[in-house]
């Protein structure tokens, strides 16, 4: 039995490793094709890893990516594609910023209030898509894309000076939040500060794993993702599950912007990072929807982001990193599917071989089996 455990780990690692190798190789080909040195950009970027200020920036960026990718992943686990994480986190961050700029409670209440505001805003926004799907059969992909566009307009409206906007120079902001809603970072001196909410990201990752793997609800959710028909026959209410998953996904998405909002910017302005929801899709894919895998993927993405600007100083274009991110997503999709099918076939063969060899559970090796556990 242990053999099959080991095999699963091997298969889980094989997919990303193959994908990354292919992506690196293809990026090198792109470099060669444009007449550049195919190795140096990578060594430049690797070198960046050794600088502590870059490390801090990578971790901070990865924190945002991580939460956004978890939001996408929970949808993926039940075959829902919440493409609207982008709109959900931006709108949620803005609502939290607005509440934070107008309510001034003690920190012990203010922080939960802001977190709750963000969760509810995100869940509300994704919930619209969820309700449309279960009542009208509207594809959540289409609905969430549309909601992204609407979110952008809502944000623009809220920025108007006679709504909640505060003009700072040429910038639209929502005004500075009260300090009770600020979350102090982990100070590393000259290297900078790590967002305090990195702790939240870690907790969310643990919670994600526990809920999915150790609760009845998580089992139902995974069953729905693995086989809608089998899940329905097992007693899962498919509509309620779709709606619940969309709400959780949106709630998580709502938190994605908070580490930077509450730890650094303290206002929602034009400079607030955008596009994190879309990057989260690629990161969730690369991380195979597993909380540990997503953590590695988020760090990799953040590294490509934060190390690439240096390329400009060495005569390369920093867009290489973007090309690379795209190539990773492409190769991930191909290699995961290939590895999955190969693994299934291989296991079928091996089970056949084991049975032929008389290794049957419950036969004479029963005691060994129990001892091996």
């Amino acid at each position, binding site marked *: *039995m242990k053999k099959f455990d080991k095999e699963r780990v091997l298969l889980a690692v094989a997919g990303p490793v193959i994908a990354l190798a292919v992506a690196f190789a293809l990026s090198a080909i792109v470099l060669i094709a444009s007449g550049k040195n195919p190795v140096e950009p990578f060594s430049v970027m690797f070198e960046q890893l050794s600088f502590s200020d870059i490390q801090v920036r990578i971790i901070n960026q990865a924190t945002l990516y991580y939460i956004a990718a978890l939001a996408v992943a929970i949808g993926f686990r039940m075959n829902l594609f919440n493409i609207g994480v982008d709109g959900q986190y931006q709108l949620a961050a803005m609502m939290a910023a607005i509440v934070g700029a107008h309510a001034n409670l003690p920190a012990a209440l203010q922080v939960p209030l802001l977190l709750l505001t963000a969760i509810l805003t995100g869940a509300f926004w994704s919930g619209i898509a969820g309700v449309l799907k279960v009542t009208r059969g509207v594809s959540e992909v289409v609905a969430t894309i549309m909601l992204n566009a609407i979110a952008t307009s809502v944000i623009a409206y809220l920025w108007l000076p006679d709504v909640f906007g505060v003009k700072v120079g040429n910038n639209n902001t929502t005004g500075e939040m009260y300090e009770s809603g600020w979350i102090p970072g982990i100070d590393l001196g000259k290297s900078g500060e790590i967002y305090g909410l990195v702790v939240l990201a870690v907790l969310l990752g643990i919670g994600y794993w526990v809920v999915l793997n150790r609760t009845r609800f998580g089992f139902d959710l995974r*069953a729905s993702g693995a086989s809608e028909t089998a899940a329905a026959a097992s*007693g899962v209410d498919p509509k309620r599950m779709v709606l619940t998953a969309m709400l959780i996904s949106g709630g998580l998405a709502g938190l994605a912007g908070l580490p930077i909002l509450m730890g650094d910017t303290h206002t929602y302005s034009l400079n607030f990072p955008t596009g994190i929801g879309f990057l989260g899709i690629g990161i969730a894919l690369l991380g195979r929807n597993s909380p540990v895998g997503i953590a590695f993927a988020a760090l990799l993405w953040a590294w490509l982001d934060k190390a690439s600007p240096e390329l400009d100083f060495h005569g390369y274009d920093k867009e290489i990193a973007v090309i690379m991110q795209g190539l990773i997503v492409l190769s991930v999709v191909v290699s995961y599917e290939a590895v999955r099918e190969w693994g*299934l076939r291989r296991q079928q063969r091996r089970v056949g071989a084991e049975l032929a060899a008389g290794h049957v559970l419950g036969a004479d090796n029963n005691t060994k089996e129990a001892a091996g556990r």
Partner: protein
Amino acid sequence: MANHDIHLTVRKGTVHALVGENGAGKSTLMKILYGMQKPDEGTIAIDGEQVSFSSPADAIVRGIGMVHQHFMLADNLTVLENVVLGSEKLYGIGGKARRKIKEISERYGLDVHPDLLVEELGVAARQRVEILKVLYRGARTLILDEPTAVLVPQEVDALFANLRELKAEGLSVIFISHKLGEVLSVADDITVIRRGTTVGTAVPAETTPRQLAEMMVGSELPTPETAESTVTDRPVLTVDKLRLVAPGGKAVLDDISFTIHAGEVLGIAGVEGNGQTELVDALIGLRHADSGTIALEGEEITAWATRKRREQGIGYIPEDRHRHGLLLEAPLWENRILGHVTETPNAKGVWLDPKAAQADTRRIVTEYDVRTPGIDVTAASLSGGNQQKLIVGREMSHHPKFLIAAHPTRGVDVGAQAAIWDHIREARREGLAVLLISADLDELIGLSDTLRVIYNGKLVADADPATITPEELGSAMTGAATGHLEHEETPETGKAPESPEDEAR
């Protein structure tokens, strides 16, 4: 083994019907003839020349074309586009192809218009497009897989007229069906398949539907016999005037009423597609009745959701274990949890209890003889029989009051079949009520205490399994007999006349 010792000879310019029960091996045979599956032994010859197909493309080159039961057409393309799709090299995609389509259509009276969108066509017209598609590719032998299953009677007549055109032009048609009346009206030759092998041929002019039914179901004595009756007078499941309407407004279940008592197995006989699936769905809660009631031990459960029904003691062995019974890519122990996630030993409160579930999976694997090297392998790596034993073990482990067993031994080898029968019998002795649906009439007669026949969504006949024969049951399944089926010693109206060999029984 799905097929063995198959002998089939199709003469040129004839319609050759292949009949057999569901699961008899017709589909496998067709897959082999069409190159979708390779035979382990034996040969296929066309016009005396031995051939071997490694893909449908090979079969098409040799002039064999298949019209599938489920149409393979793109709705939002025109007929022309659908026909040329994949065969653009033959006559191009423009005027030449259009002329060819019109020519074929006129020659065989198919009435196909190349420029209509497929989504505008009805079922019968789509079927004709499928036939034309095959002819367009140069087929001289057509395989039609249950072509009448989707048609209303007038459309069936029209289809048969088309088939006669085809054979008049020297083409051969292999016609798969289990509707005996149709087979006898259209076929020139009939080959009967049972349990994966050809058991005989028949000439339509000299055969009655009854004789054909006998050949189809075989005349061996049933093996899965229940020795002593354990039926009590305590009703467990009571269904009253259940009615279920399909989206189109047609009643797929109508006026279904029955009671199953503790210790009773109620067998439902019927040709597939007469409402069995819908009945099971209504009982497990995947569909909700449009009218009528279902009661479990006196308590009305009509409005209960699936999960509540399962928690309250309804066990479910689904007809299609891959779609409804298993998570194929999940390990066995997670499959043991499926359907019982809220019950011990799988859960404590809202939390899963993987340790206990794993331990219990090991117990099921041992007790139900599921052949597997471990409980961490995926369900997909087990054979069908072992998957089924796992499902039976899982459902029995929760001591259901009422068990829905839909084709419990379909696709299962003989050994596993006997084991599954034993488990059902044992649970029945302990007071389980069972609804048994099966295409295997021997299984039905052998296991059931009471038999009902479903036809067109209605329970049209009932019979005593102690005296009924598969042949007699078979005729009721085709709608030829209704009411209470008596064995021939006390014949009743509405029942086909007895043939001499029944006297010997």
